[in-house]
Structures are given as C-alpha cells and as structure tokens.
C-alpha cells in the first residue's frame, strides 16, 4: 500500500453511512466490496455461547460473526469521503448501534429473502432514531426472488426505496448507496420546498 493510499484528502468532509441487518446477511461483504481500503474490523470466531443465541437456519458455511464492528472507506472526491460502518445485527449490540446512528447520514438495511423478517429489527432501530434509510435486498445464490410489490408488502414499506443488489459486486452494491443519497436528497428538497 502506498502511504498516500492510507490517508484521505485533508480537505474532505466525512460522511457516515451505516450498514445494518441480521447476522450473515452480507454486511461485511458489502463493506469490503465498496471500501477502497482493506476493511478494518474486529471480526472474531463466534463462541459456543453465541451459537445458542444466533440463528443458524440454512446458513451453512458461515462460521464467524461480527462481534464488534467493521468499517470501510471510499474517497469520492477531494471534498467527500464516505465511511461505511457495518453494525452487528444481534439485539445484544443495540446500544452500540444506537450510538453509531449519531452523526450518520443514513442507513442501508440488508435483507436476505430466505428470512425477510430478520431485518425488521434493524428497520425498527432506524425508524426509532428517525434516520433515513433504504432497504436493500442482497441476492444470494439460490435465494428466492420475489416481485417488488410482494417484498414491499412483506416489509411493510410505504414510499421508502427498495433496491436489489449483489453485495459481492461493486457495480451492484453502489446502487444501494445511490438510492440512499437520492432518498435523502428528495426528502431534503421536500422540506426546503415546504418552507
């Protein structure tokens, strides 16, 4: 790594975006895909105690879970640097997630169509905090595909954006971020207009 790659432009304004969702939904993958630096993380092997708590239905091949938080970085211009924080999904980390929401631009809630209801928790946390967010369906190989209308119904979404993406591909993952920023900009303009 060149030393210049380690740093961000001194003129940049940071923008914090949270990536939320249940255990093994692809938060770490998303952060890794989008980040320009090797994500800095504190991922550790899950303990026996954790296995009793975490839901392992149909999640073969996943033997670790994020127990602290990992984050990545994306310099967008000399003026803008995006920080992506993948927040752990388990309820025992809610306090940490709430403090992360402070100062955040918004959140991306990842959904796995094999267990849509597992993302309600993250959506509720963001709604409670009144933090703008977008629901992003992360498609896994072999996960069921539903029509947008069906997903909206299952997720009880009104006019919130819903996007589909593949967290493993940069070109696809960025659509989640674009939808989020567009959503916030639209909201901002409506407020400006109403004034």
């Amino acid at each position, binding site marked *: 790594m060149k*030393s*210049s790659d380690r*740093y961000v*432009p001194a003129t940049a*304004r940071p923008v914090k975006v949270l990536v939320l969702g249940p255990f093994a939904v692809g938060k770490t993958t998303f952060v890794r895909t989008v980040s320009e630096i090797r994500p800095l993380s504190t991922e550790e092997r899950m303990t026996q105690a954790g296995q009793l708590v975490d839901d392992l239905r149909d999640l073969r091949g996943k033997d670790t879970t994020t127990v602290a938080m990992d*984050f990545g970085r994306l310099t967008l211009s000399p003026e803008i640097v995006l*920080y992506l924080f993948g927040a752990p999904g388990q309820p025992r980390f809610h306090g940490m997630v709430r403090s992360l929401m402070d100062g955040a631009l918004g959140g991306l809630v990842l959904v796995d169509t094999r267990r849509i209801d597992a993302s309600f928790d993250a959506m509720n946390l963001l709604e409670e905090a009144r933090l703008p967010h977008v629901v992003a369906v992360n498609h896994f190989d072999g996960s069921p595909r539903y029509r947008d209308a069906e997903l909206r119904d299952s997720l009880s979404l009104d006019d919130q954006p819903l996007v589909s993406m593949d967290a493993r591909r940069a070109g696809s993952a960025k659509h989640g971020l674009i939808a989020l920023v567009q959503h916030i900009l639209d909201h*901002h303009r409506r*407020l400006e207009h109403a004034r």
Partner: protein
Amino acid sequence: MTASRHRRAGMIRSYAVTGGDAPGTRAGLDAATLLVADPGRPLTGLAAQSRRVMDLCLPGALSVSEVAAHLQLPGAIVKVIVAGLVDSGHLAPRAPFVPAASPYSADFLMKVLKALEKL
C-alpha cells in the same frame, strides 16, 4: 515510557493510557470524525499515546476509527486521547456531514450523488 509494550501484555489500565483525563471535547467526537494534524505544533511534552496518534496523523488526514484500528486501541480510549490533542490545538476535528436546512446541504448531497453515480 513503555506503555505500548505493557499494553500488549494487558498490563496497563485504560485510564492510565489516557493519563486519567476527563472528557471534554470527547463528547463531540464521532467515529467518523476526520482528524487533521497541525504540523506547526511542537510534539515535545506529549504523552506516549498522544505522540503515537500525532505520528500517525501528521502525514495525512484519518478518521477517529482509523486511528483506533491502526493503533489497536479501543475507540473510547482514542476519543479521550484525541480530545486532548484537539484541546491543545494539535488536531483539528471535522465532524461528519449531517444535512441541515441550508442550500449548502442540498449542494453537498448532490455532489455525493454525482460522485457515486460516476463510480
């Protein structure tokens, strides 16, 4: 001072790493706050951990979280050290952008959007 050697062995308590400083600026520091070092400030007299933070930040800007990760220190500890360096003028903090009711906010959001679309 041999704090870093002892820290790895788990010998030094958190309050000793921070020199027992009470919070001040700390409350305003976010995990994503960007830190820009002032190269004009003398480093003499700084505690070892503060010196490590300055050595890391002098070549370029980094966020509080990156400093914590690079120095392998908990975020809460780094915030205390950084707050001291902000108070002494060694570091200038830049808080993460949060939209406010201003034309600047709309402009900035638009720039973020355009940059993402160009990726």
